[in-house]
């Protein structure tokens, strides 16, 4: 067990209702200091709302907790001083220049050595020579890097990233994650919500949320075991045909294809082992039992999830 002092976030029973719709329902979470904590779940499952409650933007209807040692109900102001929150949408001013945006954010935190901090941020970004360009003219990847730079200006101890890489190209995403890991190594705690498997597998901890309820959480390594997945690795000719057949087979919950290899998984180990034994008799393919990994767990979680919008997203 981790003690209170080692936790960046500890919340319990967090509940939020919008009208008669419960968006987040008795949510518990413990994020150890310095960890990269992945927050998974389908669209509309309440990830954004939960993050907003943790940094004092929304007041929960129920539950309690602390963030960086400050009470989320009574001390949102102190939390905001030490948290960097990167919103899902680009939320800097498109009609201000890059430098003006960074300078504005620095002033929000009343930073003393503002000018040099902004200058350094610009240099780190590699944007020194484009500092006077309007932020709105930047590409998606650059906007995201600028947003991250803006919420790092005040050296936050905790970073809350709400789907930070949505709509960003793979190269920029990899660079972004290099930066996240560097920050984590420097002691910054990171809570990041994501839809992407390649991001999920970089996390130290994972929590999965659906319909406002947390279904699974734990260290990333243990997630497959927590779900109870058994996985077989299958190799051989005419793999597509076999894939289609296995999808229809009882006892098989999931068939994931990695190139010419299938990862066949199921939560009922006995049933899946029977399927494997049956298939091995044919001797057409090579069946090999393997440890279920986070990839399989991620696909399993995401496949079972449908978008969680109870009401259609149409106004009126």
């Amino acid at each position, binding site marked *: 067990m981790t003690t209170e002092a080692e936790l960046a976030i500890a919340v319990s029973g967090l509940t939020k209702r919008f009208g008669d719709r419960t968006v987040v329902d008795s949510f518990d979470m413990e994020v150890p200091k310095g960890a990269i904590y992945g927050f998974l779940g389908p669209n509309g499952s309440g990830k954004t709302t939960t993050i907003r409650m943790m940094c004092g933007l*929304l007041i929960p209807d129920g539950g309690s907790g602390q963030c960086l040692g400050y009470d989320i109900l009574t001390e949102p102001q102190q939390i905001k001083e030490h948290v960097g929150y990167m919103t899902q949408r680009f939320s800097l001013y498109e009609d201000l220049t890059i430098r003006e945006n960074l300078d504005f954010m620095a002033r929000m935190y009343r930073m003393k050595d503002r000018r040099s901090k902004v200058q350094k941020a610009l240099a780190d970004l590699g944007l020194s020579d484009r500092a006077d360009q309007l932020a709105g003219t930047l590409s998606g990847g650059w906007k995201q890097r600028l947003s991250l730079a803006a919420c790092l200006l005040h050296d936050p101890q905790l970073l809350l990233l709400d789907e930070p890489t949505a709509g960003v190209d793979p190269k920029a995403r990899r660079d972004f994650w290099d930066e996240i890991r560097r920050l984590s190594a420097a002691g910054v705690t990171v809570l990041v919500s994501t839809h992407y498997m390649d991001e999920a597998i970089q996390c130290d901890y994972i929590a999965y949320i659906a319909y406002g309820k947390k279904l699974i959480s734990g260290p990333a390594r243990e997630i497959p075991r927590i779900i109870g997945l058994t996985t077989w690795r299958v190799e051989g000719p005419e793999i597509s045909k076999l894939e289609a057949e296995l999808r229809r087979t009882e006892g098989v919950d999931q068939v994931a294809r990695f190139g010419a290899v299938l990862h066949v998984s199921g939560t009922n180990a006995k049933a899946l082992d029977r399927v494997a034994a049956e298939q091995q008799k044919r001797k057409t393919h090579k069946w090999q039992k393997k440890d279920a990994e986070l990839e399989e767990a991620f696909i399993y979680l995401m496949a079972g999830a449908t978008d969680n919008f109870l009401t259609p997203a149409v106004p009126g």
Partner: protein
Amino acid sequence: MNLFSFARFGAVLFKEFVQMRRDRVTFGMMIGIPIMQLLLFGFAINSDPKHLPTLVEMADDGPIARAVVMGMQTSDYFDFIGIVTSQQEGDRALREGSANFVLVVPPNFERDVVRGLNPDILLSADASDPAAASGAVAAMSGIIDTAIADVLTGPLQYTAGAPPPFSITVHRQYNAEGKTSTNIVPGLLAIILSMTMVMITAVAIVRETEKGTMEALIATPVRPAEVMLGKIIPYVLVGYVQTFVFLIAARFLFDVPFIGSRLAFFLGFNLYIIVNLALGFLISTVAKSQMQAMQISFFTLLPTILLSGFMFPFAGMPGWAQVIGTTIPATHFLRLTRKVMLKGAALPDISGDMLAISIIMLVVVVIALRRYRQTLD
């Protein structure tokens, strides 16, 4: 065949109707604005106003004077609301705007008529709004002729049918030449400030939420008051610039005098700017997009122009329209500006208007703050 596809055209048509129905504010505006215009132009506006409040100073209440008063009353143009005993009292009522006319019957009027001295009855008119005064003034001679026909008996029999044995002098106060611009220009300030202040504030605030920048902003330690003040003060300055330019133009372009207290004007227009910003703030809590903020602002502008007394005389409107007009800040600021600029009013003369604007502001601020709390979540 391929030049025009009715299937594709139909699809665009259908899609447009669906979108029109979804955007309730726009839809409401399309239906609401014409209905509002119809009602206001059809029922509320009257360019030949009647029942104008009139005071009378009777230094002589003989039968002829009484007949004149009776005749004016039955003409429907004048509503006698009281008696004054001195010229100062009458002047104050005109300046404050509580009366549009003061009728002064001189001492020994009856005796002078009998003696054939052709005495003068004075009708002091508040001509700062020429449209309000002109109809009534024009009707005066006809009113007099009918009214006195019955009382011209005995020694005065011989005057019947001839011009009356006394004259009416109309004294057009505050705008002797009856220039429309003298009235319109001071009123215009109320409209200009209302139009820009309300709309700009609403749009500026909604822009932050619509673009998503508000979220990043409130995730910083910034306090709501810092955001609100920081966002609103620049527009207060815009209001100052507008007023300054306006005053220069009024003086040198339109030759409109400014004879009242500058302090009274300064206090009044600051109060008015604040009430408009509060209104813009209130609209921003209702509107979901900048477009909606513009539309709602425009919707409030219509009654501001039509019912405030800016384009049409306030006194000429029916009671219900006057009640609505009283709830509009521009109505009071318009009176305040005309009083100060044209009638030389000082602070005590405009205290009623200031009070009215303050009350409206209080109501708007309370509603806006209540709504603001809800929309924070």
